[in-house]
């Protein structure tokens, strides 16, 4: 049934640090790489080497310019993927029961064998987290690497989502956001993490950490001390003579 569970035992999700993300797209590549061979059908590409390449991705990295009123503009890199909402509208609209939210850990998944590819769940998601695979005709979305995080064939340190494991700057964190004592929950509390479009009523699990406040811009030029010439000796004599001419 595509009814949402009243509560989930855990609320696994991601915390993404917008201060630390450098926009390298490594998470996009790692995600595509892992999910090409793991859960469900592979993420297909259409015309990958043609004039109009296009493909299915579960994670996209946007870059925004943010212009404060009285400070310099900031560039913020912004990874966007499924937020594993507590009140996921993509789940309840599904006519076949293919979309569901797991009671044990809160992960939102698609049972591809039951997906008819109607696309209604992608319409229902405000965040653009779901993409229909053009080759298989089924809906693809972030699985939170459900086939990694519990996988005992992998070394302990690899049992986290591929995007988190690969991030070179440590901008992505994975954990139980339902437990207020977890590392991710404490990080969110400490850094005032926020949810995206909370007014859409989806109760997202994932949180974003805002860019840290910037120092004030340096008023004078860094070169200023070098321009104040205090020549001595012969150079000083030459400076004085030339100045009088």
């Amino acid at each position, binding site marked *: 049934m595509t009814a949402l569970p009243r509560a989930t035992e855990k609320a696994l999700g991601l915390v993404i640090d917008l201060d630390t993300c450098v926009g390298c797209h490594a998470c996009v590549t790692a995600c595509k790489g892992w999910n090409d061979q793991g859960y469900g059908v592979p993420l297909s590409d259409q015309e990958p080497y043609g004039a109009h390449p296009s493909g299915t991705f579960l994670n996209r990295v946007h870059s925004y310019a943010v212009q404060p009123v009285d400070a310099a503009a900031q560039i913020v890199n912004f990874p*966007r993927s499924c937020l594993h909402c507590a009140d996921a509208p993509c789940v309840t609209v599904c006519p076949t029961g293919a979309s569901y939210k797991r009671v044990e850990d809160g992960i939102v998944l698609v049972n591809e064998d039951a997906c008819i590819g109607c696309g209604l769940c992608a319409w229902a998601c405000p965040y*653009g987290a779901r993409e229909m695979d053009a080759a298989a005709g089924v809906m693809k979305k972030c699985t939170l690497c459900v086939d990694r995080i519990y996988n005992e064939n992998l070394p302990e340190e690899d049992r986290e989502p591929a995007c988190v494991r690969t991030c070179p700057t440590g901008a992505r964190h994975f954990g139980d956001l339902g437990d207020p004592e977890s590392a991710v929950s404490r990080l969110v509390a400490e850094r005032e993490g926020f949810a995206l479009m909370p007014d*859409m009523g989806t109760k997202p699990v994932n949180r974003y950490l805002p860019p840290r406040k910037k120092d004030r811009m340096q008023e004078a030029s860094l070169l200023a001390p070098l321009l104040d010439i205090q020549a001595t000796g012969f150079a000083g004599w030459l400076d004085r003579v030339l100045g009088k001419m």
Partner: protein
Amino acid sequence: MNPAPSVIVFTVLSGMGFGFLALLGVFGATGAAAFFLWGIGYGLAVAGLVASAFHLGNPQRALLAFTQWRTSWLSREAWASVVTLGLFAPQALADWLGFDWGRGFGMAGAVGVALTVFCTSMIYAQIRAVPRWHHWTVPAVFLAYAATGGLVMGGFSPLAVPALCVLGVVMAIHWHYGARAFARAGQTMGTATGLGGIGAVSVFEQPHTGGNYLMREMIYVVGRKHAERVRMIAMVFSVMLPVIALAYVPGLVGVALAVLTHLVGALAQRWLFFAEAEHVVVLYYGQRVA
């Protein structure tokens, strides 16, 4: 939103067909004409439902869509349409073969039609992420179209003309609320990214250089470019021309003209319904068109 032809044909034809079936269910028909008229009604409704399967990625599993009626409006619509078509069957048979079975099945079927069309409209109206659709005027427009479509096909001017006028008013109200729906929903690039508190947010670089599913499906801008013209076409063809045809062109020719013009108008309205609707995901791509 991408105006997929299969979905436009589905909603227009099945709406009109179900409307006509409801009319037949209530008022009935007799003899050979009954066979023909019920056939047209069933033909339209079923053709619409079949068309809806064409936009599915895996139509072979379409029967699974009957399983989630407790939460999904799409699933409820599947049930409502099949049950309604079933309810009408004995009535159609009785009309054709002249059995005196009363109009119970026809009346029940007419109620089923209202429920079916309501479920169809709720597939769209339930979606908060498309503010223009998330409004009570959407079921109102869908129901008005089904009712008028049926009455126009029946060629029953005393009811069809007032119904057409009501449709015109409902459509105008729907467009009036739709114009400011996105702004009313209150979502901006600032709330979408959560960065609005720092300053004005604009796109620095897009996440991908090619197109993707989201852009093809939900960031469709052609509709808004020609919106005013299509609105005019929808109003003139759905409402005004059928009224004129029914009022001034006598006999079957008048009805045929009314039906054809109404159908063209309905297709224009439904095309615009999809093409004009903006999904909030557009905000991540910064292409917001007011």
